[in-house]
């Protein structure tokens, strides 16, 4: 009987460990990309508001732009990152399933 990668994993062979670590690395890279996207925008916001005090004199919806910009839009960004991440993470796991247990 042919040994599948699944057996290697279940028996904790060196090969199995390799498959698992490849998956973990892929997941970490995905999370890191999402983290950079999030951190880049949110991390830059306080600095941008500090360096561009003029934003406070621009009014949107009757509020200074500097307030509007942190009050609502970042939440939309969070949700967008979360949805994209969730899809990619599930796709990674699906391709791992296909690799480990060929249909």
């Amino acid at each position, binding site marked *: 009987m042919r040994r599948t990668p699944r057996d290697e994993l279940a028996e904790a062979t060196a090969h199995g460990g390799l498959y698992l670590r490849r998956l973990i690395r892929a997941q*970490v890279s995905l999370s890191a990309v999402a983290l950079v996207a999030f951190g880049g925008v949110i991390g830059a916001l306080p600095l941008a508001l500090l360096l561009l005090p003029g934003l*406070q004199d621009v009014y949107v919806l009757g509020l*200074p732009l500097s307030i509007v910009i942190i009050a609502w839009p970042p*939440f*939309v960004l*969070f949700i967008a990152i979360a*949805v994209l*991440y969730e899809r990619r993470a599930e796709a990674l796991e699906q391709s791992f399933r296909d690799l480990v247990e060929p249909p």
Partner: protein
Amino acid sequence: MIAIAAIAAVTGATLGLGIYGVRLARTTSDLFVASRAITPWWNAAAISGEYLSAASFLGIAGLQMKIGSGALWLPLGFTAGYLALLLFVAAPLRRFGAYTISDFAEARLGSARVRVLAAFVVLGIAGFYLVPQLKGAGLTLGEVTGAPYWVGVVAVGAVVALNVASGGMRGITYVQAFQYWTKTFAIALPACLLLIHLGGLPERAAMFGQELPQAPAAGLAVELDAPQQVTFPEATSYTVDGAPAQAEAGEEIVLPAGTIGLPGGAVVPVAEGIDAQTGEEWARPVDSSGGDASPVFVYSLLLATFLGTMGLPHILVRFYTNPDGPAARRTTVRVLGLLALFYAFPIVYGLLGRVLVPELYLTGETDSVVLALPEAAWPGLGGEILGALVAAGAFAAFMSTASGLMVSVAGTISFDLWRRGHADMTVRRRRFRVAALGGVLAPVALALVARGLDISVLVGWAFALAASTFCPLLLLGIWWERLTARGAATGLVAGAVTATGLIFAGLAMEGGHPTVDALLTQPAVLSVPVAFAAMVLVSLSDKRRREPAEAALLAMHAPEGLGLGYEEPLVRA
């Protein structure tokens, strides 16, 4: 009157559902079986319901009124914490099947010592987090009924302890989901109706211009229960119980208890600990001139909330009701949406409060702005009903968060710290009850002395402590196989000592350099790297034979359906 009825209704409903729920969820494994039927939306509402505490309901608007737009970083961080949970923790931890962080520590590192250490950290975080809930309860009951501060603190402490000890609130997803919608409705409806009633934002000059908060044209009368030290930003006349008095600009005066009267248009004096700010200063989200919203403080706060959420003891337990890893992820995405919905509204109260209830600057109790605003903005029955609604929502916030925390505290004391051994279920249940009743005493005592501290600041400490202890433990435990028990223990101690040490140093010292002050108020930016470094360095230099991490890695990361992980998680109890 309406408000008291509304509070009684929310409390009664919570207690009733709790008692009814005991019959439904007798044991933790029942809870697990029941969880199969719960959809991600229900789970997400339950998680959000438990998470939205006094800090979200009262604290954000209160801090915004006090320090200005710098407070708006709080809801951002509170929500971003779930993004961190989603990216690094939700799915693997659910697969691993650990109920609590102590469970995770013991199962992953094979060390009972780390488990006990983690248990003490849980008590520390829960303590920091419980105090502001009780403080909120004292404030709310005082605002609504005029009862002394301690009445609300003791009452909510007692109700929560009894509720938890009787087994209520234990994993009852539907109750917590109901609490989420109660809170969101209670904060959203008054905010929208007030904006419509006032025709948008009134008096923008005071909000964003050069003006300091002023008494309304008809003058201002404030009742003081106790003498209050205030600073008058501008010279003005005022009255104490009708007797005229005069204050110079910048003068510090201890106002006696009684009725303080200010003429129309007079600049409102500010209580100790509050800076009088012009609208323009107040509206700045980041302020380099050494105010409360200094860049160091903002970044440290964002870091603490982003990394701290995953370490809150009452949050991870809820993830257990997800049937598997992908469901845990789907739930987290929905939590982000539900939190975004709620956090759209506190800002309305913070903005309106500056103009409509400036007397809170004098009393120093800006944390009660959400409660005071409806009646101030809309005199008459309309305001009274809306005031009752926000009071009920606030109570929903204290009850749900405090109950979740008390379950964690009682569980930690009775399972992790009580002398182990072969205790049967009845003994364990009795221990759990004793722990719930005993565990509430310390937070109640602290809440009684901590009246002067802002709800948001207290909660910020809980996040800082969680971010500097459990965040590195979870992240390294899940993603880095070389973490050892000794490394984890060192990191936990290093992070906890650094964070609490800085916080208490900040309480003891007063008024230094603004950057130093910011670090002492929100130490995460220092203590998180210290904890990570300690864990990594000690683990790498640990020469003892390591537990093979392979099985744990497989359990956490192997997708479902391959028969590789634990599949059926470890069930304690």
